[in-house]
């Protein structure tokens, strides 16, 4: 026996040492990190919090009771670390990429940042680890009792719980930032890992080589059956236990904390994958010898769970007992510290903060929130240890440590389907995760957790033995008649099985929303993104560019450019991108939220702004899947189609303008040509008249006459050009009156009679007998007819020149046809005959400018009529003037013969 004072003194000294280590490491890390404290060895040692006081004391007890079964508790983690280390690596990658703070954070984040899922996981975690905390209290209490001989277990347990709470609060909440790694705590835990390993090996060596006489002596006379124990190896219980321990190393909140959250470098996982199994081997190797020696040396009826402690005491090796106690104490404290930190992080982040943020005034400064966080975490730690104590109190201090630990294992195993499904199965949904967790948790509580109170809590002994209301099918430990398993296997099969089933079925039945899909893809394909060790040198530039690319993609090019230009301008940058300050990121997130919703915007922007390892391409690919982006893109497509139509119209207009422009150029060139010709004569002859003084009077008179003629020609040309332009531009509005086409024809023929007579042209007429009423301008109509008629006279090369003029009413149109036999218009010219300055036939010395027909056409159009050239017989030129008939009531016309 040791005195309580000495024990207390040693414990306090040990705790002070741990404090010193934690403090120094934290302090040094903040200034200049100590290299070896960041190493993979320290990381591996911190993972060894898996080996709690349950392992430290209970493994021996388990070996004494059940033979080799205790190995399963090490077998699972070993399999995971050696065979499934890539799963851990993926978790670590995801954890770092998404700044995961806890397993609840991971699961809720994966399923679309669901707050309800975070609360659910947190609740399950807290309830599930409560027995585990109680277990630590119990083992420390028991060991204390054994050493000092105090029998008031409850009081001892209370003070131990209180001490641990204080210890954890002082240790675990020193850092203000929840995301910050607890370097000091990890260092202290690593020290404790060494202490507990050394202690166990020391006791093992003592038992094997000092109490017994070497291994041969230990195993002498021990049958294989004794070692194998009652449970059959590789039977259902073995498989269940291996499965549970494998699950626990992944799903236990404290393991998640040290493996994922506290991980400094991903490659440390590789070291841990072989070093941690080695550590566990060290913790295991003397378990059986201690158990066997204990069984042979200790009086019957002594608790095998405490052989590690009682064996040295029985041999009066107090210092060794003290070391063993410290080993057990280390196991318990390291586990409690980390478990409480992990749980308090979850409680404060996922339960307290959301509530507080809703209740607090919106403009609470960040300092308030941080203080609130710290306070809530401190209270959470106290509450969790309080719960542990309560469990200890209510469960009455069950003797079998291992059994209590397994209850916790099954509890946290409920996270497995959602966790594994979440990082390997894109289609896993929030609904599936919630369904699985709720069902699994309920079955765990009903079949394992509540029965562990032996009828003292919620479920009565009667319900446990006979089922609720006497329905034996619903007996908690033999649900639906499944009674040939032991209660643990039964609980595992039901809770984890139904959990996985519900998870898969509900995931298959529901469709993930945009954010879920986004997060799912990011988690499942975390390796598809660029490597985690991206250069930090150009991080700032790359960040803004990435943000800009994202903004362009979601807001559209122009608005994104505008936004970034504005932000750059506000930073005083004239050209280029703004610096990625918090204000810029926040502004962008707000802008994006308008398009894709706040949650997605947050997810996207923080991923990029955080310099995370997810590629933009992926984000954009995923963003494309969201409904909002589809909608935006649909609108963009519509706009683009509209633009295409507008562009098409513009092209048509542009082509037309270009044609018109070319015509204008051609017209000006023609005008220039037509004007230069008479001016050449005028200039030349006037120079002759000015300079030559010897010319005859005849020549002088002839030259002056030419100048006069050419002046008139110039004037006429200018008049025509102006006239045709005004007609075509619609500036000259012609006064239209109702008149008879026949009468107009007769008057025109009278006007031109002198010209036809002198040219020897015969004019025939075939006029309709009735009046052909049209709406026209009398003078202009006559101008057109005289123009066409004079052309027929001028260009007529026939031996017996003839002109036929006829009128008719056809299909409501009045037609005036002027046909001559003068040689016709070549087909290739007939299309351009109305072009300005085109001359149908170049007969050499005609001086008529080519504006007559274009003017005639312009006049006809201005009178709502038309002038066309009809291709008929050879050597025949056929012009047709047509008007809409002005009177609807009219008898059919009868052609009449006549000669003008």
């Amino acid at each position, binding site marked *: 026996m040791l005195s309580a004072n000495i024990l207390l003194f040693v414990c306090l000294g040990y705790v002070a040492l741990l404090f010193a280590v934690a403090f120094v490491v934290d302090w040094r890390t903040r200034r200049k990190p100590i290299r070896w404290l960041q190493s993979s060895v320290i990381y591996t040692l911190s993972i060894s919090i898996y080996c709690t006081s349950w392992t430290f004391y209970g493994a021996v007890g388990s070996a004494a009771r059940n033979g080799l079964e205790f190995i399963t508790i090490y077998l699972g983690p070993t399999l995971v670390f050696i065979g499934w280390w890539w799963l851990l690596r993926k978790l670590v990658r995801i954890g770092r990429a998404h700044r995961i703070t806890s397993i609840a954070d991971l699961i809720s984040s994966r399923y679309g940042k669901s707050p309800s899922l975070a609360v659910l996981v947190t609740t399950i975690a807290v309830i599930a680890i409560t027995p585990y905390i109680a277990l630590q209290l119990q083992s420390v209490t028991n060991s204390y009792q054994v050493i000092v001989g105090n029998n008031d277990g409850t009081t001892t347990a209370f003070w131990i719980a209180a001490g641990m709470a204080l210890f954890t609060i002082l240790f675990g909440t020193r850092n203000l930032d929840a995301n910050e790694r607890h370097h000091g705590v990890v260092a202290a835990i690593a020290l404790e890992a060494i202490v507990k390993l050394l202690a166990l090996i020391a006791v093992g060596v003592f038992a094997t080589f000092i109490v017994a006489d070497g291994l041969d002596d230990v195993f002498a006379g021990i049958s294989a059956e004794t070692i194998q124990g009652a449970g059959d190896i590789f039977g259902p219980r073995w498989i269940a236990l291996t499965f549970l321990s494998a699950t626990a190393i992944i799903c236990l909140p404290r393991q998640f904390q040290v493996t994922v959250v506290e991980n400094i470098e991903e490659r440390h996982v590789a070291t841990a994958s072989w070093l941690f199994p080695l550590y566990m081997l060290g913790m295991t190797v003397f378990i059986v010898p201690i158990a066997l020696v204990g069984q042979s040396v200790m009086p019957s009826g002594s608790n095998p769970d405490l052989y590690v402690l009682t064996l040295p005491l029985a041999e009066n090796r107090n210092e060794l007992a003290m070391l063993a106690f410290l080993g057990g104490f280390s196991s318990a404290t390291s586990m409690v510290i980390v478990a409480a930190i992990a749980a308090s992080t979850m409680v404060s982040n996922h339960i307290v903060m959301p509530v507080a943020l809703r209740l607090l005034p919106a403009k609470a400064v960040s300092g308030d929130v941080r203080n609130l966080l710290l306070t809530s975490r401190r209270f959470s730690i106290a509450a969790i240890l309080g719960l542990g104590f309560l469990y200890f109190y209510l469960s009455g201090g069950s003797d079998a440590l291992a059994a209590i630990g397994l209850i916790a294992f099954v509890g946290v195993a409920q996270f497995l389907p959602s966790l594994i499904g979440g990082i390997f199965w894109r289609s896993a949904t929030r609904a599936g995760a919630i369904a699985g967790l709720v069902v699994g948790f309920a079955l765990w509580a009903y079949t394992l957790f509540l029965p562990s109170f032996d009828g003292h809590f919620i479920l009565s002994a009667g319900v446990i033995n006979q089922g609720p209301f006497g329905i034996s099918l619903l007996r908690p430990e033999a649900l639906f008649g499944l009674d040939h398993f032991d209660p643990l296997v039964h609980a595992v099969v039901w809770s984890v099985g139904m959990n996985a089933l519900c998870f898969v079925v509900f995931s298959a039945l529901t469709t993930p929303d945009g954010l879920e899909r986004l997060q799912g893809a990011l988690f499942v394909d975390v390796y598809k993104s660029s490597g985690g060790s991206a250069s930090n040198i150009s991080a700032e530039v790359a960040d803004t560019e990435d943000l800009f690319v994202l903004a362009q993609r979601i807001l559209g090019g122009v608005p994104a450019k505008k936004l970034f230009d504005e932000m750059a301008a506000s930073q005083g940058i004239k050209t280029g991108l703004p610096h990625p300050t918090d204000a810029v990121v926040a502004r962008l997130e707000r802008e994006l939220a308008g398009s894709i919703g706040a949650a997605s915007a947050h997810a996207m922007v923080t991923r990029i702004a955080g310099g995370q390892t997810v590629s933009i391409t992926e984000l954009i690919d995923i963003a494309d899947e969201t409904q909002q982006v589809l909608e935006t893109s649909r609108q963009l497509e519509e706009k683009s189609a509209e633009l295409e139509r507008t562009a098409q119209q513009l092209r048509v207009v542009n082509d037309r303008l270009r044609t018109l422009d070319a015509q204008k150029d051609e017209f000006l060139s023609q005008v220039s040509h037509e004007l230069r010709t008479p001016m050449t*004569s005028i200039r030349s002859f006037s120079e002759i008249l000015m300079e030559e003084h010897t010319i005859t009077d005849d020549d002088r008179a002839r030259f002056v006459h*030419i100048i006069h003629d050419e002046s008139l020609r110039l004037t006429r040309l200018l008049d025509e050009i102006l006239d045709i332009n005004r007609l075509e531009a619609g500036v000259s509005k012609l006064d239209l009156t109702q008149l008879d086409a026949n009468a107009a024809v007769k008057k025109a023929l009278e006007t031109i009679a002198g010209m036809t007579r002198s040219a020897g042209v015969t004019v025939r007429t075939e006029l309709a007998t009735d009046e052909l009423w049209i709406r026209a301008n009398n003078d202009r109509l006559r101008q057109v007819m005289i123009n066409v008629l004079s052309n027929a006279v001028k260009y007529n090369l026939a031996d017996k020149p003839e002109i036929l003029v006829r009128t008719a009413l056809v299909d409501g149109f009045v037609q005036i046809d002027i046909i001559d036999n003068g040689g016709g218009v070549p087909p290739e010219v007939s299309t351009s005959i109305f072009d300005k300055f085109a001359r149908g036939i*170049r007969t050499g010395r005609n*001086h008529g400018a080519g504006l007559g027909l274009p003017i005639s056409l312009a006049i006809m159009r201005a009178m709502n009529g038309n002038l066309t050239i009809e291709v008929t017989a050879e050597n025949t030129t056929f012009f047709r003037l047509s008007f809409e008939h002005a009177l609807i009531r009219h008898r059919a016309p009868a052609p009449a013969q006549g000669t003008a």
Partner: protein
Amino acid sequence: MSARVLLAEDEENILTSLTFLLERAGYDVSVETEGPKVLKAALSTPPDVLVLDVMLPDMDGYEILRRLRASPATERLPVLMLTAKGQREDRETALRCGADLFITKPFANSEIINAIGELAEKRLQ
């Protein structure tokens, strides 16, 4: 012997003034008003100087010049081109086709007479 000038022009009044001026200057003047006839006359009895209008009926001046340059008899015939289109591309086309000189209408009498005189002198040397 006086130099022979062939006037290829379809504007009657311009022909009148040019004939008057050239005869007064002592040239032997002949006249053609249609493209093909100009070509035929120039090839059969090459003049000392050809004054060639661009806008001629049935065959334009450029085409006539191209054909003259292709014939050994007239490949070095001095040609003065006249045009009422004063644009730069017309001048370039004329020179590319092988015109020796190029004058835009309306011209000063002294300008065209000097030009013809220059070409005739070159021809006779």
